[in-house]
Structure formats: structure tokens, C-alpha cells
């Protein structure tokens, strides 16, 4: 039987087992929306802005490992989606974006709502396609899902002209689509792994540093097993939080610009560094020249060869799937331990050193303050009330760093944030995507009054689909991270970082049909959070927390500085 292109698109989604897609209709995708209307299995979530559709699909994927799917129309639909696509690309999130295009014959004629979608999105997708023949449609959709979810994952866009969604063709969904030019490596090189294991066994000051690759490869159990077996200190990057359980003594916190003192010192002074699915980002190792001053052997496991020796020269590169590689590491180590070769005794002295560094208590803050609400306190209370088991999304800025520092994640895929692109506005749509993928789970969006206003229209989507997400806004009436940099690096000249004329968020939440709670005193934080997750469990709740206006995120490594050139507090300024 022949199907229309639109029906083929929907059938492909069904074949892939897609339950939810996020999108916004428009002229070029009306046939697809019509096909969606006439079936039940793929549920469409109507957002209020295309950017949010992409973010929600992105978080849907981050929290489940499934491929996120979104659907936007041509022209402005696509350009609005670009921020979301770039965000997913920077964090290697598997996603398929379906975009409408003007009819084939009109392409290039500056038609209404036409834009060069493939051209505009090319630098921020793993791959993209323009479907020019309906006969290619099903195979192209299959390729999109394969490419998005294998190797180093990433967003793939399929641009479909309107006439193709109307034309008819026999439908057959290919089981596989061999691509001679696309064969991601899976298994790590045995010899390299053997070399790496030897280095680890001889190490006196070893350090394990893991990133988002561990989460994406679903390798958290393997990482926990390996690190426990080794007994080494371990740090997770912003993208890797939850990869190793934060409640373990071996976890030294997050590294980097706002990482812990002990994590950064250990990164700098270790003699063997095992990097797993992490990319030595500028926010993680600071100035690469300074980082290279201390000699150390670096083992780097990554599925993407181009991530290896990009910013830091690596001694033992291992290209492969992180999970496969870690399993092999553990097997070889266990064999070595069986033969009596324990890790180096020197590691004990290294732990003493690390515990010395820990005594700095670098995340200390004025916990006892009864006058103003410390933002860190809110995150700690949230952790307590949700038993450390909620899905936490965040926006970008100070609140994001406090969430990363103070919400201690024991499980992967619980911490959902924009690490690479640093996109303000992701928090609320992320929470929506997570909630839809995990109905019944506790989902909180830690945000600020700046970020939340970048996608606040999605409160309306939350209403439409009864998404009981909790927005915890740390409202300091400043673009806090900008203000912090201006204080430290720009002579306290607060150029455009003060937010005047803020809305009444409580009444705003109520106007959208939600519960709004305003919290102004430290003693009211806990009851408000308990209400949000208790009394208003089934409602969308907006908690507007008026926090200390000038609190800064510590420690801090200023841009361009070395990893150990940390400011631990305002006394270091």
C-alpha cells in the first residue's frame, strides 16, 4: 500500500518506538501534523516556542538514553530551533530534528518561510539531510536515527519539503542502512588498554577524571566498579556528575573553574591521570600550558578520536566505547590483582595529601545565616527533601554551579544541564522533557530569575500537559554570574547585570494556572520546598526564593588562569 510522505514519517517514528515528540506546527509541516492527528502511538507535545521543543527533546534523551525527537516548520521554525540544536550538539545528545521545508520547486526562490536549513544547521549537527525524493524518505529517517545514536551521539536533522510529505510511495522501513563512510569504533585497542593498566598499577598519585561520555555510554555501573576496585580518587566533570556516586569517600567533587580545591589540586599533581569520556575542556583544566607544567602520564578513553590530544597531549590514547573499555580495564585489573600485584603503596600517601586538601573545606558558606537566604542552602535543602534522588535540571549561571556543587548525585542521568554551549533558558523545557520521560519522578528546575525568563512561556505547556515540575528560582535580582565576573575582573562596574522591573513571579505562576510561592526568610525555605513536593505534589510549582544578592560562587579559577590558581573566597580578591 502506498503512503503519503507524512504518513511515512510517522510510521518511521513508530518503527523506532518513539512515544513523544515535541514540536510546533506551521505551513510546511501541516501534512505531517495531519498524519500525527490520525494515530495514537506517537504523542505530540505542543510547546510555546520551537527552542523549547528542541530542549525538551534533548532532556527527554538525556534522562533516558532514548533518541529525542522534535518537529518544527520551515524558516522561523528552524531558526528558532537552532539554539536548541547547538546546545544538544555541544553535549553530544542523540536527537532527530524533523523540519519542514518549502516545496521542492520553490527552494531557492526566497519563498515564504524559506531558509537554507541544511546550511544554517550544518555546523551544529552531527549530520543533516535534505530529502529530495520520497523514495529516499524512509531510509533517510533510519539513517538519522542510526547516526544520532551511535558512535559519539549527536543531533541529526532531516529537512523535508512539503510536496514530499504529500506525495505517495510504498513504505518499507529498512532494518539496517549500511554506510561505507560511517563505522564508529566500539572496542578499545587491547594493547593500549594493557599499557594503561600497567600505568595504573604503578601509579603513586593516580587520579580518575570522567565526563559526559560515561553518562552517554551508560557506563556508570562499570565506572563505579572500576574505581572501587582501584581505590583511587575520582572527579566527575559538570557533564559527568552522577557517573560515579557522589556519596563515596573516593569522590572528590567536580573539577574546573568552580570545582573543588581537592579535585583541582589532584588533577594538577597526579602522576597518572585516567580520563574517561571527558575532553579537557577550558572550563575543566583552565590554561592548558599551566596544566602541562606538572608532568603526568595521561590515559584517555574516548569514542571520538578528535577529542584525543586536542587541548592536552595524551600518552595512552584509547578510542572506543567507554563502557566496553571500562569492562576490559576491570577484567585486566582483576587478573593482575589475582596474580598478587596490588596497586602501589604510595597511593596511601596520596590519599593523605588529598585529605589535607579537603580540610580547606572549599565549599563552606555562611550556613547559619538567619537574615538572608544563602543560595547554597536552598540547594542543600532540596537535596535533603528529595533524598538526593530527584531529576535536577538547571539553567546557566551561578545557580547552575551551586546545583552542581551542592546537589550530590549518586546516579547518572539525574543532572540535566547545558554544559558545552551554556544556554540560558534550557531549565524549564529540560524539566518538561524529563517529566514526560519519567512520569511520577520528582523533577526540579534550579534556575535564576534571569534564565527562567528566557523560556518562561513554557509554563503554559506545563499546564496543558499537567507536568508537575518544580521551578526553584534563586532570585538575586542580578545576572549573578555576570555580576560576579564584573566584581572580580571589571572593577565592580555592573554593566547591565541588574534586573530591574522583575515580574511578580508568584502571580505570574498563578496566571498560568500554577502554584506560586515566594520565600524571603531562611526559615521558610524548607517548608516551601516540602509544600512543593508534598501538598502540591501534582502541581507545577514556582518557588521564587529571594536570595543573598551578592553571594559568589567559590572556588573560582578565572578565565585563562591555571587550574590551581584558585580563589577560595572574597578574602582572596
Amino acid at each position, binding site marked *: 500500500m502506498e503512503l503519503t510522505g507524512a504518513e511515512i514519517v510517522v510510521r518511521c517514528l513508530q518503527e523506532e518506538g518513539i512515544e513523544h515528540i515535541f514540536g510546533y506546527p506551521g505551513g510546511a509541516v501541516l501534512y505531517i501534523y495531519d498524519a500525527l492527528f490520525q494515530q495514537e502511538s506517537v504523542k505530540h507535545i505542543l510547546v510555546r516556542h520551537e527552542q523549547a521543543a528542541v530542549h525538551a527533546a534533548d532532556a527527554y534523551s538525556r534522562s533516558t538514553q532514548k533518541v529525542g525527537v522534535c518537529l518544527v516548520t520551515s524558516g522561523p521554525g528552524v531558526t528558532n530551533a537552532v539554539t536548541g540544536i547547538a546546545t544538544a550538539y555541544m553535549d553530544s545528545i542523540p536527537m532527530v530534528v524533523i523540519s519542514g521545508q518549502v516545496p521542492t520547486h520553490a527552494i531557492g526562490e526566497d519563498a515564504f518561510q524559506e531558509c537554507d536549513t541544511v*546550511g544554517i544547521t*550544518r555546523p551544529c549537527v552531527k549530520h543533516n539531510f*535534505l530529502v529530495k525524493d520520497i523514495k529516499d524518505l524512509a531510509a533517510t529517517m533510519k539513517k538519522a536515527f542510526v547516526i544520532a545514536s551511535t558512535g559519539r551521539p549527536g543531533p541529526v536533522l532531516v529537512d523535508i519539503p512539503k510536496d514530499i510529505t504529500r506525495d505517495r510511495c510504498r513504505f518499507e522501513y529498512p532494518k539496517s542502512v549500511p554506510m*561505507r563512510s*560511517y563505522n564508529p569504533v566500539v572496542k578499545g585497542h587491547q594493547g593500549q588498554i594493557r599499557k594503561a593498566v600497567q600505568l595504573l598499577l604503578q601509579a603513586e598519585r593516580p587520579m580518575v577524571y570522567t565526563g559526559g561520555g560515561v553518562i552517554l555510554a551508560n557506563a556508570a555501573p562499570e565506572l563505579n566498579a572500576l574505581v572501587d576496585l582501584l581505590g583511587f580518587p575520582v572527579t566527575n566533570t559538570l557533564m559527568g556528575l552522577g557517573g560515579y556516586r557522589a556519596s563515596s569517600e573516593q569522590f572528590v567533587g567536580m573539577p574546573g573553574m568552580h570545582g573543588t580545591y581537592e579535585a583541582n589540586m589532584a588533577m594538577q599533581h597526579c602522576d597518572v591521570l585516567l580520563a574517561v569520556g571527558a575532553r579537557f575542556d577550558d572550563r575543566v583544566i583552565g590554561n592548558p600550558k599551566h596544566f602541562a607544567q606538572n608532568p603526568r602520564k595521561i590515559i584517555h578513553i574516548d569514542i571520538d*578520536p*578528535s577529542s584525543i*590530544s586536542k587541548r592536552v597531549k595524551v600518552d595512552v590514547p584509547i578510542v572506543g566505547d567507554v563502557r566496553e573499555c571500562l569492562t576490559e580495564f576491570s577484567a585486566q585489573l582483576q587478573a593482575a590483582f589475582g596474580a598478587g600485584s596490588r596497586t602501589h603503596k604510595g597511593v596511601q600517601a596520596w590519599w593523605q595529601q588529598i585529605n589535607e586538601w579537603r580540610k580547606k573545606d572549599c565549599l563552606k558558606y555562611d550556613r547559619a545565616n538567619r537574615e538572608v537566604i544563602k543560595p547554597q542552602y536552598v540547594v542543600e535543602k532540596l537535596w535533603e527533601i528529595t533524598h538526593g534522588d530527584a531529576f535536577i535540571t538547571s539553567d546557566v549561571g551561578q545557580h547552575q554551579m551551586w546545583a552542581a556543587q551542592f546537589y550530590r548525585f549518586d546516579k547518572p542521568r539525574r543532572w540535566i544541564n547545558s554544559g558545552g554551549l551554556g544556554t540560558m533558558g534550557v531549565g524549564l523545557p529540560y524539566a518538561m522533557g524529563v517529566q514526560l520521560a519519567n512520569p511520577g519522578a520528582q523533577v526540579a528546575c534550579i534556575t535564576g530569575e534571569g534564565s527562567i525568563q528566557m523560556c518562561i512561556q513554557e509554563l503554559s505547556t506545563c499546564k496543558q500537559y499537567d507536568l508537575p515540575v518544580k521551578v526553584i528560582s534563586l532570585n538575586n535580582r542580578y545576572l549573578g554570574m555576570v555580576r560576579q565576573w564584573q566584581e572580580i575582573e571589571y572593577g565592580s562596574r555592573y554593566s547591565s547585570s541588574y534586573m530591574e522591573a522583575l515580574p511578580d513571579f508568584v502571580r505570574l505562576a498563578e496566571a498560568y494556572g500554577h502554584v506560586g510561592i515566594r520565600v524571603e526568610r531562611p526559615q521558610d525555605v524548607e517548608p516551601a520546598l516540602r509544600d512543593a513536593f508534598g501538598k502540591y505534589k501534582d502541581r507545577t510549582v514556582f518557588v521564587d526564593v529571594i536570595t543573598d544578592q551578592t553571594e559568589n560562587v567559590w572556588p573560582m579559577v578565572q578565565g585563562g588562569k591555571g587550574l590551581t590558581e584558585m580563589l577560595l573566597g572574597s578574602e582572596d580578591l
Partner: protein
Amino acid sequence: MKHIISILIENEPGALSRVVGLFSARGYNIETLTVAPTEDRSLSRMTIVTSGSDDVIEQITKHLNRLIDVVKVVDLIETPYIERELMLIKVRAVGKEREEMKRMADIFRGRVIDVTDKSYTIELTGDGVKLDAFIDALDATAILETVRTGASGIARGERILKA
């Protein structure tokens, strides 16, 4: 240092712009670029002359390999190779210059392929250095127009680049 990157790539619309976009987005340099389909029409062969430190070239080849359309990438200078470029050059040829021009073309193994009473058009192939040398050998004011294809390259001996 100069490198000659040979690429086998799917002969698809937009494939070229993916390669060029990669170079511009990451700040890599393209000195010349040639591309045409191979005997297998589904594949194009591209030659890019670029320069950079070993680290940069390593990143270039890794990133090229990461492109979904790219089938194979090699840096030709790693083994013996042959490089050729075609130049068409239109020169002023009046009076006794005519004989001089013809002689110069002969010395460089060039061929005069078009003639008017005031000009010659000379076809010349060789590596880039040879073409530069020819241009330098001419009186600059005599050069009316040049067009160069950019380098194509192939490995010497048995070594081949196949999908």
C-alpha cells in the same frame, strides 16, 4: 609545513560545503582545493593543500574522518607522492616578445594553446613550485591573466586510496 590531504567523499550535494565549513569553523587554512567525481560516480576525490603544525594536521584529519560523508582521508606527504597542478596563463606577446615567450614556455615544458596577434595562452602543468617559478621568470607586466586549478595528488607506487 605544507600538507596535501586527499579525501574520498560521497558524491552528494552539500558534501563539499561540509568540508569547507569544517576548515573555516575551526580556523584551518586551505591553500588550494580541487574536487571531481572518480571513476565510481558515487564518490568524489578531493585534494586540499593546507599547512600547519603536526598537531593541527592531526586534528584536521580526525575532524575530516568524523564527517559522515567522508570515506577515506590520507595525508599524501607521509609517503612518496606526485603532485600536479594545471595553469593557464595569458601573456602579452608582441614583436620580439613573441619568440621569447615561446622559448620560455618550451623551457618549462609548457604549450601554447591559443594565439592572437597580441597574446599567447600557455598551458603548463607541474607542482605548485614549478608554476610559481614560471610566473617569476616572466616579466610581470607581460602577464595578462592566470588561472590555476590547485594541486591534485596521488601516492607513488602501489599505494592506493580506495573506498
